[in-house]
């Protein structure tokens, strides 16, 4: 029985771990978390432990070697090569030397955590972790196994080892965020996903109807990943361990640079800290900076997938940012940068959203041929009609409601800490919201079999 994020079993599992980890003294908490991690991984299959064991061994051993011995760069290089090889072995099967290797869940995520640990040890930011239990807990921390966020080891270990002080409000906020993530996935994201499938996957849908589907796909991919992050952050907060935010209203970004400060923040900050800055960042002139940007985003594209489309997706993100930087530099030279940004921010947000949405098409399809077919379908005129898409009147109304909820919530998140604000709400009002969410979840969630399979997490197998 898999502990899928969107299942009652996962919620119960989190509650059990919560109740077991809280009363124990700090010294015992790592053991409880370790057992929870093992149980979680085991639920996805015992074969997952194969690669987990290898990654753990490399990380632990090389962490100590890098910390204690000379030739730190050499040891780092060897460990990075080994870990990256493991990562690319599954993305590029030609590298697979032993066909009995089993691709575990969340490989990309815990590998990047391992790499960040080794880089930090090499940089002297942290000492190597002597207690294998703590390293195991960090690398394979169950809320982050499926899809991050890619947290950093120092904060994690300090929290897991800290003297326990139960913060009721914090735990409550965590529980709510966990539930909210599940709600976001099953009520909103899966609903959009069904409509997207009706448009993008139906060759008879063209023109405005297809455009509608493409825009909705943008929302779907955002909500899918944001929901995963909320579930991870919320369930971790229940246990008293704080993970970094992963999304901050990304579609309200005014340019791609801003977008990547708001989208999958843990991954983009990882690339910034461990690839972009070591390459020189913006410290070696505009040309090198542009080159570094392109390299980083190509790497990001390849991290997501092994097709040319992912590479192209990353490359375009990099190139467009280079162009944006050039325009930004020009506007700064003319001393109108800030004024333009403020005055035209709604337009800039719209333009940025359009660019990101267009690039998501490349992300969605494995080949450019399929992307091109979609673009051709876009040019075939078709009046906008929900009936053509295959939606009933009630489905349309519900879509409007959900879109309004998503947009308003995102605007609120842009300006404030929504969870904090919600927690301070007058309690009958808060419980009224809980009740409304409960009822809407029961009625409108996409769940179960019988022809209503919930869509798979898009990011699970990265």
């Amino acid at each position, binding site marked *: 029985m898999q502990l899928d994020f969107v299942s009652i079993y996962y919620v119960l599992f989190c509650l059990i771990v919560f109740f077991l980890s809280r009363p124990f003294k700090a010294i015992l908490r790592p053991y409880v978390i370790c057992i929870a991690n093992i149980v979680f991984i085991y639920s996805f299959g015992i074969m997952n432990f194969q690669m987990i064991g290898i990654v753990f061994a490399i990380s632990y051993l090389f962490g100590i070697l890098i910390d204690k011995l000379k030739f730190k760069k050499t040891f780092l290089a060897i460990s990075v090569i080994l870990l990256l090889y493991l990562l690319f072995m599954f993305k590029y099967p030609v590298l697979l030397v032993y066909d009995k290797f089993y691709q575990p869940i969340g490989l990309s995520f815990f590998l990047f955590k391992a790499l960040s640990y080794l880089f930090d040890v090499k940089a002297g930011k942290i000492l190597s972790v002597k207690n294998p239990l703590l390293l195991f807990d960090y690398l394979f921390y169950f809320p982050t196994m499926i899809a991050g966020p890619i947290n950093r080891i120092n904060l994690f270990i300090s929290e897991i080892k800290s003297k326990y002080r139960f913060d009721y409000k914090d*735990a*409550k906020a965590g529980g709510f965020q966990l539930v909210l993530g599940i709600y976001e996935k099953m009520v909103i994201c899966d609903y959009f996903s069904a409509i997207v499938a009706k448009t993008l996957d139906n060759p008879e849908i063209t023109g405005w109807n297809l455009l509608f589907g493409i825009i909705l796909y943008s929302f779907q991919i955002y909500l899918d990943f944001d929901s995963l992050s909320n579930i991870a952050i919320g369930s971790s907060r229940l246990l008293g361990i704080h993970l970094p935010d992963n999304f901050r209203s990304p579609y309200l970004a005014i340019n791609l640079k801003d977008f990547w400060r708001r989208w999958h923040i843990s991954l983009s900050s990882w690339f910034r800290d461990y690839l972009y800055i070591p390459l020189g960042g913006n410290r070696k002139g505009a040309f090198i900076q542009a080159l570094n940007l392109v390299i980083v985003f190509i790497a990001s594209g390849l991290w997501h997938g092994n097709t040319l489309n992912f590479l192209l997706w990353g490359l375009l993100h990099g190139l467009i940012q280079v162009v944006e930087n050039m325009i930004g530099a020009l506007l700064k030279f003319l001393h109108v940068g800030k004024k333009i940004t403020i005055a035209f921010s709604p337009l800039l947000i719209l333009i940025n959203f359009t660019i990101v949405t267009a690039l998501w098409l490349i992300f969605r399809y494995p080949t450019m041929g399929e992307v091109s077919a979609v673009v051709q379908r876009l040019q075939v005129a078709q009046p906008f009609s929900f009936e053509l898409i295959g939606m*009933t009147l*009630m489905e349309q109304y519900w879509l409007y409601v959900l879109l309004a909820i998503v947009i308003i919530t995102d605007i609120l998140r842009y300006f404030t800490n929504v969870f904090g604000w919600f927690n301070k709400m007058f309690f009958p009002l808060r419980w009224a919201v809980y*009740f409304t969410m*409960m009822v809407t979840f029961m009625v409108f969630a996409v769940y179960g079999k019988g*022809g209503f399979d919930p869509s798979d997490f898009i990011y699970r197998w990265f």
Partner: protein
Amino acid sequence: MRKIIFKLKPFYYFISTIVKLALVVLMALTTFNYLNKQPLFRNQEVNYDDEFFNLPENCLDYVYLGSSHVYYGISPTLIYKYSGLYGYTKGSDCQSFEVSYEYLKNVLRTQSPKLVILDGYFACPSREGCRMESNYIVAQYKLRGEEKYNVIKMLSEEKQETYSNEWLINHNNWKNFENLETFEQLMPQKPKPNREFGYHLYYAFEEYGYAWQLPRYSYGVGKLDEKDVKYLNLIYELCKENNIELMLTMIPYQATKADQDTKYALWQWADEKGIKYLDFFNDDFHYFVEFHGDTSHSNIVGVNMICDDLSDFIKENYSFDHHGTEQLDSEYSSFFKELARYEYHNELDPERYLRTLKEDSNTYYAVKYTAGMNATITEERDALLNELGINLPSNSNYYAILKDKKILYESFDEPLIQDIEGHHIELGSDYLVYDDDYKYLENETGLLFFSGNWYTIKSIDTRYTFWETGYYNYQKMY
């Protein structure tokens, strides 16, 4: 004191959390339970048999178990008419004895009938045409509680998961909810007369079906399936434990020789157990049951004949401490009236039909009488016909068109051909024409009335036809 409060604080939060979680869970379960019962989240195309579960407890005198032969062939309303007993048919498509056993257990949770009647169709080889998976799905809808899940367990694993929580397939019904009319349609409706006490009206007597003459076979004795015997024994034991009489029947249908042979194996089992049975396929071909198109299910005429004979058999062989209640008497009677009024009253109550004609001053009626075919014209019916202006001749065919108790056109022996208000009608000895519709009426006998709403229906609505042949003609033939 402060130290105590400080030390107790974590426990307070712990208990507070537990209490709040419990409240949330309770709220969720209550809300879910409430929503689950709303019509919007039910499968609108299935029968949940709410009517049975809303009956007063321990009110039924008998329960009838079996397949579609039972729920199409047995009308508790008609049995009430003939015997005064309260009954219910708990049948489902191709219902196996295993499912009948679950149905019986479910029934006994709220009822304590004196008699359980089990139709033996499922023992027969013809049942091999049944699609059991879909039959189990239909059967479990009419069950609640433990027995429901026992029947769900008979499904494949994947389907078990789905039907264990029907919410999964139905909670999307809101997508089809368009307006208030949809909402009204979804609200629980009073059971229609074509679905009362488990009986489903299958065919109206809209046109002549063919009458199936039961073949005469020299019967062998077949073999019962082991699983069938197991569940027959379980049903028998369950009845015995609860001091219930068990009775078997074989409701008529187009049975093969193999079916008839297996039927005799079933009677052998019944004899061993001392169980009485009523074989509607009796040797002297008492039954001349009217089928309409299909060869498995009776139409209303056949149902009437079966229920009449069954009631006689029950009255002869069983005694009941029948405790009538005003409420149930009123319900059974009102369903009987509805059944009579709802299109088919002519088959059951020709006098009533003729009285309806008397009240109707707007409709044209065509009358066709074939001489020598012995319609059953009782004195009362004769008087009513006279009141309508009809005087049937004794030796010739008669055709007429009447309205508002006045004969507008009539013809003796010769076919009647007439144009009325732009419509063309022809009445002949074995045919009827209305505009472009031609109906060949083979072996028509007796007195027939036809009516149609000539302003809205093109084809002839022959529902208001009746005769009482078949049974009576058969008697005259032998």
